């Protein structure tokens, strides 16, 4: 049984996405990476559950593989 929710779940989809873009505006490449690393760690801590985090890592890696 998958615990990770991969169905739409955002309260305010467009609002969140807008905020995500805004946070990156005007950043240099290095800072973009740095920001995302911090964001990942903050979100991961909020989720907390190891099973979900592992599934999320796999889901993200799977979505990176192109044929």
């Amino acid at each position, binding site marked *: 049984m998958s615990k990770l929710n991969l169905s739409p779940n955002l309260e305010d989809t467009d609002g969140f996405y807008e905020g995500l873009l805004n946070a990156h505006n005007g950043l240099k490449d290095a800072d973009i*990476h*740095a920001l995302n*690393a*911090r964001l990942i*760690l*903050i979100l991961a*801590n909020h989720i907390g559950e190891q099973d979900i985090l592992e599934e999320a890592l796999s889901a993200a890696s799977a979505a990176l593989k192109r044929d």
Partner: protein
Amino acid sequence: MVQARYQTAFRLYPYAKVADQAASTPRRHPVVIIGGGPVGMGLALDLGKKGIPCLVLDDHDGVGMGSRAICFAKRTLEICDRLGCGEQMVQKGVVWNLGRVYRGEREVYHFNLLPEEGHKRPAFINLQQPYFEQCLVEEIRAEQAKGAPVEIRGKNRLIGLEQKDDHVLIQVDTPDGPYEIEAEYLVACDGASSPTRDLMGLGFDGRTFEDNFLIADIKMKADFPTERRFWFDPPFNRGKTALMHKQPDRVWRLDFQLGWDIDRAAEIDPDKIKSRVAAMIGKDIDFELVWTSIYTFRCASMEQYRHDRVFFAGDSAHQVSPFGARGCNGGMQDIDNLAWKLAMVINGQADDSLLDSYHEERKYGADENIRNSSRTADFLTPRNPAHVLFRDAVLDLVEHYEFALPLVNSGRLSTPCTYDGSSLNSMDALPNGPMRSRPGSPMPDAPIEDGYLLDYVATGRFSVLGINCDLPEHIQLKSYTLPCLSLRSERDVLAERYLGEAQSAVFLIRPDQHIAGRWPELNTLALEHAFETATGGS
């Protein structure tokens, strides 16, 4: 000829010619231990105290110079208490419980490794490895005087071995030339580059970390705190790490990360080291260099720790990075585990299959140590830009948010292994018992009326602990006599660590103080079954 490979700090077992060297057929020994480092000597002491004849062969005549290990963990001290020399070590050592982590010049957090009362031993002592080994050898001498059948042969080097049906044939070189002996069991405690392993053609797989560290043990009069202090990116070693730790005799261990591409010769130059040290401790403090070395590290393990009659213990079986102090501390848990098993099998009290559980349990323990040690190494020595990215993110976040503190990894310091899932455990039969005393765990210490619990079960044999249920003085299981300890406890530390919500409990305790099974009250049938399970029967 036996050429010295290193300098010795104390000459403790000078070479002497023995009758075995002139024997026309090789003499048979029940247990031969290759290597008289801390692990080999610990094993010899444990076996000797149990009356099992054992012979230690070491290719030097004393303890190696220079300090490697300095941090000895609570569990190691408890094992040494059982062996009779824990007190000497603690007396000589520097006791510490606190670690601090800095970034630049600011402290980012600190941790207490033993944040609770009610333990005889501290989280750690710092003691130079040569002293630790000396304590073990002195205790062996004391036991020998009482008749313990231990023999140590200095300048005896293993040069060949062959497994036969019922023994191992061993070739040994000495200053008077080579000779042969036979061993019923051979335990290789001959260190990370184990000649035993090589002679048997066995592998040692793992990862090497691309980094160099400089150790400078210095002597100085200074009142830095008795804590493990660790720096990320300090002003005196920008972009790298450093460590400062107090040892006995006003000696301090300083450890500097150097990076991978270094000029070794330049870095080991005493003047260069002195300027590094001065930058760290301040220009006005006088000091002298006691010992310096540059080391790299790897995490590696053998696949199998038992090969028929040959066993591997300590660094010969597994190697870790120094940051969690899991090397020697892990090795001491190996011998704690192996000695009683060998003794019971040799005494005919258990089947050979009990010895398989040595590999099962200690490989499990070593995997845990390697996992922890590798994770620390990955934090300290990032291997690619993404690793650097996340490491720096963690260190930045720590300054803003508490959640990131536990992610900072400057070493996960050695804790004893709980043998969850071991074939020697019986099913947990104590409803709502505390997790920390579940089957497989090493007994947590606790204060009792006349001192500390562990001192009362330090018998080196199977025993039974009853809390709030009156046990007889002994329980006889076929030919084995189990001494019993009966204690009362109500809402105290003992209850918290051993009863949880239960009113009473009975524990079967292994000779290494690990818990084999637990029940709410005495049930002789269950106890007998658990004893069989814990001694390798089914």
